[in-house]
């Protein structure tokens, strides 16, 4: 664990020099709609380094769409998204990845035919350089690069405790493990922001606890900022630093878990009367 963090922090330091921006991510009043549907309707918020920021809201409120907007998979019609002070608008998704935004998906989106190792190595794609000719010839640079990155990936595999699955095609792995691999693939990108879309959905208590532990470790030890979308209030209210509540694409509350939890609108739109059940 310690090994990962130290190395990773060092790599990050090398890549992105000293900090000269006020917010890591600054979402400014974005509007996104699909024929008819207003998926995101004027949402603004900021996320700072190392923060664990949660987004909750009813189904179809626009949480995933918000992620997709930040990734530029969807292109909001209005508003702006600043990453370290620079706008992300109009970039291609793969560029946002290079800039340091990593992501896991609501419905697992791993590469089922590839092994755990390969999946996580693809995460390293943005951090590698060698082209196809060098690769095909397996010459010096490409080769050494492959090996270096293999080491990095191994350290992530250790961290997530999935050594035993290393060489299995992920398609064959249990749901819970796949969720972990997905986290691993995201971490492999050396991100500064990690967006988790319902990381514990469909997990039993034990797996939820494991996942929670990894999330917290990522935050504390790797100092990666996290945006968490999750319907498990037990988890969110427990580990989030700040919470944003969406409803029908609109922002109905932001603040500390406790405040949000108490907010009548939130209860009405989302939590429902009997909170303790969650």
């Amino acid at each position, binding site marked *: 664990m310690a090994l990962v963090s130290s190395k990773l922090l060092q790599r990050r330091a090398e890549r992105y020099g000293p900090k000269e921006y006020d917010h890591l991510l600054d979402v400014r009043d974005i509007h996104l709609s699909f024929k008819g549907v207003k998926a995101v309707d004027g949402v603004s918020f900021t996320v700072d380094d190392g923060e664990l920021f949660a987004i909750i809201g009813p189904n179809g409120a626009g949480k995933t769409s918000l992620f*997709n907007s930040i990734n530029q*998979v969807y292109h909001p019609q209005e508003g702006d998204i600043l990453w370290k002070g620079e706008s992300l608008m109009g970039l291609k998704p793969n560029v946002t990845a290079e800039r340091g935004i990593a992501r896991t998906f*609501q419905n697992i*989106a791993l590469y089922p035919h590839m092994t755990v190792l390969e999946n996580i190595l693809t995460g390293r794609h943005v951090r590698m350089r060698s082209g196809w000719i060098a690769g095909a010839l397996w010459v010096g640079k490409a080769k050494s690069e492959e090996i270096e990155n293999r080491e990095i990936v191994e350290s992530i595999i250790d961290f997530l405790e999935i050594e035993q699955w290393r060489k299995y095609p992920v398609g064959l792995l249990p749901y819970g493990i796949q969720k972990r691999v997905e986290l691993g693939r995201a971490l492999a990108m050396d991100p500064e922001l990690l967006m988790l879309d319902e990381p514990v959905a469909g997990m039993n208590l034990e797996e939820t606890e494991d996942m929670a532990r990894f999330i917290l470790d990522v935050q504390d030890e790797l100092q990666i900022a996290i945006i968490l979308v999750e319907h498990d209030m037990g988890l969110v209210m427990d580990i989030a630093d700040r919470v944003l509540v969406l409803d029908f694409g609109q922002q109905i509350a932001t603040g500390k878990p406790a405040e949000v939890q108490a907010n009548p609108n939130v209860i009405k739109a989302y939590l429902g009367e009997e909170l303790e059940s969650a």
Partner: protein
Amino acid sequence: MTPAAVVLAQEVTLGGNEFTEMLVEGLSLGTIYALLAVGFVIIFKATQVINFAHGAIAAMGGFLVASMATILDIPGRWLPDAPAWVSWVGSVVIALVAMALIGMMLERVFLRPMVGEELFAIAIVTLGLDIVIRNVVNDFIGQFPRPMGDPFALAIFDLGWVRIAHTEALQIAVALATVGAIALFFRSRMGIAMRATAFDQEAARAQGISVGKVFSISWAIGAVLATVAAIFISMFPRRPAGVDQQTAFFAFKAFPAIIIGGLDSIIGGIVGGLIVGLAESAASTYLAFEFLGTGFAGIVPYLLMLLVLLVRPYGLFGTEEIRRV
């Protein structure tokens, strides 16, 4: 480039004007393409199978009709004094029923086991099927084309401004009627069942949809449509000598139609077929320029296809693949 077809003399116009001739030819080609395309689409729509054996199946159907109507003379032999067209229609109906059964059989034996495999693994199976059927059928057909034995012979409507063979008139009518009926059929409960099945067999079965039935029906329809197409291909004036060893390849010409219309859209199949037919006929009438060389009209459908896909990557009516995370 070698000099292509050039009309050297002043034009001696016979039979109708160039334009109407072109239109008739286009419609008659187009409806055949439509029949082939729709059959192909139905099978794809319901079973996710790209049926490369479609042409071979068509040839088989054509041969069956030929043998019923001429060689075996069924049911003609039992109704000696019925009018020619009655016994011919009889033969056709019998052949169609037989082909429906054969279609089901093929699906059951060769494709059912492949359910759920990779699209293209299945495609290769149908390719194997094509090789098998084509060789067997061609051996039956033999070196001599087999005429359809239809009662229309060379009869022609001469309306002055256009001459159209009875066979072509019939063909256009029948084809449009058939594909129309099919299109309606697909609005039905069965239609949805087919789409559901194609998308997710397990989920479909969970809804009580009998996937096996869906597959059988779609293959039956596919085979029948292919046969109808084969009949009209193998008649005067297109192939007056009848179904021969080349008939099986005709189906390839329907591919651009399928794509232009959209792989999984029946309406698309129809529209695509007509577009391609007309385009081809128009091209061969108006684009016989020397510098274009030989066979330019033949690739016009493909050029059209490329154009359409540039504007609409899923054809005119195709449903687009869901891309979401």
